[in-house]
């Protein structure tokens, strides 16, 4: 069934939907790049989806793409590409795969931003020294 039809069924009725006091509603499905409940970012409905997740060991990022051929076979549905080198290479890989690979180009910036946010969170936290605030 087409993505549009599935979206019309799921847009207001899903166990993964999160409606709180915020103006926009969110969605908890795993392949949603921004977590927004919208047609473009929905992770269940499209034949091609992009997701960026942190690697389980905490260093690096996994780019998850959907195989458009096997949408009915959940076990074979996703290809996971692990990106563990430095941030610049990771981001440029993501840009290439999506942009030049012509795979959901509308999600390119969102994927890059999410990857950079994850990478940033994985860096050790540097405590800045406060400059002479305490006198005594």
């Amino acid at each position: 069934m087409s993505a549009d039809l599935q979206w019309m069924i799921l847009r207001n009725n899903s166990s993964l939907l999160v409606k709180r006091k915020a103006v926009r509603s969110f969605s908890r499905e795993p392949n949603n790049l921004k977590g927004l409940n919208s047609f473009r970012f929905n992770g269940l409905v499209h034949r091609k989806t992009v997701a960026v997740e942190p690697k389980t060991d905490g260093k690096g990022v996994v780019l998850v793409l959907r195989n458009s051929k096997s949408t009915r076979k959940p076990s074979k549905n996703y290809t996971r590409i692990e990106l563990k080198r430095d941030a610049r290479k990771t981001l440029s890989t993501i840009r290439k795969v999506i942009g030049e690979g012509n795979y959901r180009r509308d999600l390119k910036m969102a994927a890059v931003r999410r990857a950079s946010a994850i990478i940033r969170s994985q860096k050790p936290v540097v405590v800045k020294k406060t400059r002479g605030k305490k006198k005594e």
Partner: protein
Amino acid sequence: MACRPLVSVYSEKGEATGTSVKMPAVFQAPIRPDIVGSVHMDMMKNGRQPYAVSAKAGHQTSAESWGTGRAVARIPRVSGGGTNRSGQGAFGNMCRHGRMFAPTKTWRRWHRRINVNQRRYAICSAIAATGIPALVMAKGHCIEEVPEIPLVLTDKVQTLTKTKEAVGVLRKLKLWREIEKVKSTRRFRAGKGKMRNRRRIQRRGPVVIYNQDNGICRAFRNIPGVTLINVDRLNLLKIAPGGHVGRLCIWTESAFKKLDSIYGTWKKASEQKTDYNLPMPKMTNCDLSRLLRSDEIQKALRPPKKQVTRRVLKRNPLKNLSVLAKLNPYAVVEKKLAKLVEKQQKKKRQELQDAKRGLATVDAAASGGKSRPRKPVTKAPPAKEKKEKKEKKEKK
């Protein structure tokens, strides 16, 4: 009506056997959550037991109103004496121990008739929805590692007798996470249902739909969350629990194959239901992006306007010469002319003045733009007078 794909059949060990079955046409039926919801609600009403207040409640007194003149409200009061109850108000809904407003009656319309066609439409929609992974996931089932949706198993599953074997099957099919999810949601019901024999509740797990029970019911029934149905008796309340489409269904091969004869394909009417064929969808192609990209639509469109026109700030032509020039090109010429005329008039005036005062006019252009003090024709006036004259000119 899309072409119907082939669905592989899986063994009870979770591996694909070589066989595949053509997907029954029901799975292409239009999905109408609104019809499913309303039919489900009506079907739920049919299982109700009537409740009512006793007909005599509140009326088992011989109360009479005391009428006016006794400094009390005119509500009927319990007759007699010797007890607290005497003289108390009775019968009204506002009275203590009175009859309630509109006492509930057993002849309330508890059950609902649903048109046969609507019932069938609902169940076709519900079955179609179980074949779409997105809808099953949105319902909340954990199917990330399941081999295929719709999930079809060989008929050997129907002969299983031990729950242990059934659990093994579910584990191999990666459905155990789903069962564990059911177990983790076991809790007590909120509310009075606890004391009405409905104490515990849990999530719904997968439905196992079989053709012949050769032990499968006994094997699967004790696994938390699992429901078992025979294909011939599919129930909307089980396929779309809560009125929401997309429950996880596990089919046995013969059950899956039977669906075509139960519901029909569009080309062939149903064999088991008299005079029934699958509902027709309103749109044959609901893929919006494909429609927009199609030739027929693209031909009718004008090319896209990529140029962004933004709001232009209006500038006042009366103050802004370039804007005035755009509106009235002759205005520039006019202004130049006016300037020239002004210069000439000024010069004339100056000449007249100088002639009156007896000075020789100096051509401002020739002398480099600035007017210098005039050369006196007669003897030089004293320095004071020069200064006075300068001041006068500056004032002008």
